[in-house]
Structure formats: C-alpha cells, structure tokens
C-alpha cells in the first residue's frame, strides 16, 4: 500500500467532481429538496379534518337514539366536521364518491337491541389513509356509551420510553432519510464513475501503472467518502437545524430546516453514515462490473436500492416483516444504519451502547466484504 498513490486517486476524484456541477447538485441539493418536501407533507397531513355524517337505517327508536347520541358526541370534536343533513345510506355513499364526506357512521337496517352493530363506511380507494379519522370516531363512540351508562371513563395518556409521545412522523423518519440518501446517491455516483473508467479505457491505463487494486478501491472510498461526508453534514444540518426567517414586506415568515428534535451525538450518527457510504462506494465499483452502459447501472436501483428501502425499516419495523423476509432484512446494510441512527438520534445512545456498537460493527464488516469484492473485480479482463 502506497499512500502517495492512494492520495493521487483521491485527489483525482475530487478534481473530477469539482468540474461536474450536475453531480454536485444531485448530492447536495436533491436530498434537501426531497426532505423539505417530505417535511412539508408530513407536517400538514396532521391538521387534516374529516367530514363525517351519521345515518340511521334501522327505523327503530333505539337506533335513532344511538344516532342522536353519536352526533352529539362527534359534534365539535377537533378534526371532525359533522354533516347533519345526510338522510340515508345511498345519499351518504354518493357523497363519499363526491368527496364531500370522508367517513359515514351507519346504524344498519339489521340493528337491534340484541345485536348493536355499527358500520363505519369509507370510500375504499386508499383504506389506510381514510382510516385516519376512525380513532376520533371511536373515541366519540366510547364517550357516547359512557354517557349512556352514566359512568366516567378513564383518560388514557400516551407515554414512550424514548423521545416524546407527541413526536411527529418526521422525527422518526429523519434518521432513516439521512442514511438512505447517503447510500443511494453514493452508490449511483460511484457505480457510474467506475463504469466510465471501465468503458472509457482509463481503467486499462490505470492498471498499466504500479497502482494496486486495493489502492484504487481505497482512493475511491476516500474520494467519494469525502463527498458523502459533506452531504451528510449538509443533510443533518438541514434536518436538525431550524432557521426562522421573519416576514419581510410581501414575503411571509418562513423557516429553513426542519428542526427535528434529537438527543444523540450527531458525530456518532455521522460515523454510522460514513461507514455505510464507504460500503456503498465498494458496492458501486463491484456492480459496475456487471454493467456495460450507464443505463445498466441505473437498472440496479430496483434490485439493490428499492429492497433496502422496503425492508430496511424505512416503512415497517423488521419484526413486522414476514418471517421469510426477516433474514433478508438482516443482511442489508441500510437496516443496520437505520437502526443505529434511530438509537442515536431518538434514544440518545452513544458508543457505549451495545446496540449501536453492533450496528457499527456489522456496517464495518459489510463495507470490508464489499471492498474485497470490489478489489477482486478490478483486474477482471475487459476483453
């Protein structure tokens, strides 16, 4: 290993990048734009109001009484707008289709004192999204029942071990987003740069010099690691920081940055992402062997990146995955990065935490395996 040659490869990658404004924009502006968009969507989704109606189809006095009680309980609830004008089930269904109603509580025709069944009706195009108003309705139902029985219900207070129970979705997504972007962009950029070396004849030229494969991989890792490091710094600053800009003339007040709460040490978060990024550099070099064109590098996105997004804990906890997919999730580097970042940023864990050390250790191991694989593919004959 010759440090001068590694430094030469490193300097060359930095010089190449400086002259490539598009890739710089991809690294530094694209993630910020996406995270800002995500933050905006998630924070306004919570102030959504549901338009609700109660319909009595039973024709029984008991049904009508329940309907009245429900309406009384729902009226004025935060996040619920009650529409008292809806007379029957078919009108309600039409209004759901017209999107003038989000949820209809139906006292069905077969309602009886023995079988006190109540139907909650939504449109069904996006069942999960439509269900967001259901907890509020259920709470109203509980209140109505409690009133009927004349007894007070206990109040339920939500608490969590880490973080705050009022943490928004954004707070838990922020660590995930930081790790995932670092991985995705570093993989794409290295894959394409190294493919260019292979097809542009410069790899052949490099291999005709005394530089070793390990020196090339190390130089690449340092070069792209440098840019990935800067990217993580920018993204972390954007996610964690918040700069309030006061209103100025016609421009209303706005804020730059998301101001996500974190309790952990950003440096440890940084270290996790850096090791993840170095693994992505080697993976990019390795997979560039199996591509002949830039388009073929992009074809690796659904194979390499999307599964990590789906299984790595981005959307669902690993424990909730089907049992066959859990072992798959446990070999993906993003899984460990996301877990480590959550431990650090939400639970405030440090390097003394065995969980964080395990995540970091696995990431180092994965990076080492891919570095070896990358080095092994470099002398593969081009002919």
């Amino acid at each position: 290993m010759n440090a001068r040659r590694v430094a030469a490869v490193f300097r060359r990658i930095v010089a190449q990048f400086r002259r490539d404004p598009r890739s710089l924009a991809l690294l530094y502006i694209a993630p910020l734009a996406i995270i800002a968009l995500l933050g905006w969507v998630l924070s306004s989704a919570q102030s959504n109001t549901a338009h609700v109606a109660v319909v009595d189809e039973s024709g029984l006095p008991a049904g009508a009484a329940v309907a009245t009680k429900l309406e009384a309980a729902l009226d004025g609830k935060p996040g619920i707008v009650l529409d008292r004008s809806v007379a029957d089930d078919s009108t309600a269904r039409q209004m759901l289709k017209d999107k003038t109603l989000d949820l209809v509580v139906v006292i069905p025709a077969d309602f009886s004192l023995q079988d006190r069944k109540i139907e909650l009706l939504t449109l069904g195009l996006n069942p999960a999204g439509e269900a967001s108003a259901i907890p509020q309705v259920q709470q109203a139902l509980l209140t109505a029942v409690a009133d009927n029985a004349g007894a007070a219900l206990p109040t339920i207070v939500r608490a969590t071990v880490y973080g705050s129970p009022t943490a928004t979705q954004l707070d838990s997504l922020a660590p995930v987003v930081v790790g995932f972007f670092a991985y995705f962009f570093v993989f794409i950029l290295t894959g394409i740069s190294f493919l260019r070396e292979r097809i542009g004849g410069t790899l052949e030229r490099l291999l005709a010099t005394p530089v070793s494969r390990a020196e090339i991989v190390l130089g690449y890792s340092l070069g792209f690691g440098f840019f990935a490091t800067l990217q993580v710094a920018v993204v972390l600053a954007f996610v964690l920081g918040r700069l309030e800009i006061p209103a100025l003339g016609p421009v209303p007040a706005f804020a730059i940055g998301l101001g996500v709460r974190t309790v952990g040490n950003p440096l440890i978060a940084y270290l996790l992402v850096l090791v993840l990024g170095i693994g992505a550099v080697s993976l990019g070099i390795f997979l560039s062997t199996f591509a002949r064109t830039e388009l073929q590098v992009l074809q690796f996105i659904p194979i390499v990146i999307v599964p990590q997004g789906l299984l790595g804990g981005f959307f669902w906890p690993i424990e909730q995955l089907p049992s066959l997919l859990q072992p798959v999730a446990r070999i993906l580097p993003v899984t460990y990065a996301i877990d480590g970042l959550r431990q650090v940023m939400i639970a405030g864990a440090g390097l003394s935490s065995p969980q964080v050390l395990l995540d970091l250790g696995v990431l180092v191991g994965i990076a080492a395996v891919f570095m070896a694989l990358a080095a092994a593919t470099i002398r593969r004959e081009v002919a």
Partner: protein
Amino acid sequence: MANYAAPAPAVQAAATLPPATAAPAVEAVALRKDFGPIHAVDGVNMALPPGRIYGLLGPNGSGKTTLIRLLTGLASATSGRARVMGVEMPSRENLARIGYMTQSDGIYPELSVWENLTFFAALYGQTNRADLLKSLELVELDTRTGTPAMQLSGGMRRRLSMACALAHHPAVIFLDEPTVGVDPALRVQFWDHFHRLAADGATLVVSSHVMDEADRCDELLFIRDGHVLATGAPDQLRARAGTDNLETAFLRFATEGATAGSEGAPAERARESER
C-alpha cells in the same frame, strides 16, 4: 483457419544497432492467449534486444493489442511466458519501468491537461514539476495546461496520452497505434521523438496497421492471426520477399506462410537469445 508460420530465419540487424546478443528487453516464449475457441495470440516467440524501435505490423484483429496486453501483464496468458527487462510478467513493480500508450486515449475528459499528466505521473512516483512540464513541451501542450481534456482536438488528446505514458521515463515503451488520428506533420514529430528515446537506450514496441510507418522502425514483426509471420529490418524483409513494397512483402509472407508449413524462425531467434 490456416496455420501461418514465418518463413526464412531473420538475418542479423544493421551494424549501428546494439548487438542482438544483449539481454532482451522484451521476451515471449510460446506465448498464447485463447478467448474461447479463438486463438488471439497463438504461440508467439520473440526476444527483442534493447535500444531499438520494433514495429508490430498487422491488420486489425491480428492480435497486436492482445500481444501487448500479455507483454505488459494486463491480460493473463493461457500458456507461455512474457518477460520485460528480464522480469516475468505480470509484475506490478515492473510496471514502473514500462510505459504503455493505449489505443483509446485513456485520459479523463473532465480533468485538465496538467491534472491528467500529474495524476498518471504520481502513480509512477514521478512528481518533478519541471520534468513534467518538459514532457508537455515535447508534445507541444505546455501552453494548454489548464484546458480540460474534453476540449482538446483528437490529435492533442493523443499527444496528452503519449505524455502520460512517457512522463516517468520508462525503459520499455509499448505504443498501441500511437499515430491514429494524428496529422502527418505531427506524425513526423512523434517518430523523431521515438528515435530520440531509442537513442537514449529505451526499447519501443509500436503497433500499427499502416505500412508506410513501418520504414521508421529498426525491426518489424509481421503479425497475422496471432502468429509472427516474419521478423527483420524493413530492407531485409523487402529483399527476402523480392519486392520494394512492404505491403506486398506482408501479403507474400502471409501466403507463403500458409503453404510453406512451419519453419519457426521467431522460435529459433528466441532460443538463440536464451543461450
């Protein structure tokens, strides 16, 4: 496919050149490279004494580039051996004494002329600025140090590629089609430069499919279908083929080789030099 072999053995080269008995700078022994059923290099023997310019001549696809890649250790031989300066290839350390100008330019289009040169030179451990500037002067690119390579003309890129291959003063230089796309005036300069390098003791192996360049070489190796058809100084090859045109000579050796069977001239030369 016909099995071509070289006809009559080569005669001793001109007296002004270093003696052929000197330890060969480049050597191949029964060197062979197969790509599946194709024999790209089919049992080549050669022993090239130092300080001369050797021309690898043959049509496209005759195996010239593969032969150079075997000699530089960039490709692994199916069988046989390659030695440069007495060291068995592939050898990473030995690459520091070898210069290789590839057929494609092999330079980074985003980087400037100076960045390309200093990058490759640094890999060879050559960091002397004044010396590097001098090698840019030789290819007349010293006024263009800051220009990104992608803005250079084809001929300039070729010159930059050559400067990158020569900046570390290699003892053995492989040049794969160095003059393709280079205008005639510059081609003359290239060859003058090659002769200066050879006079300083370097060994040059230049591949080409242009026969009119052959006369500028000290010795030629006619290559076809992975075989060495004939070796010798241009005048000798013309005399032996009974023609004053090298192209005709090449074709004559090719057809003779097809009918005459194997007399194995290059193999004999290799054996001689091993003694």
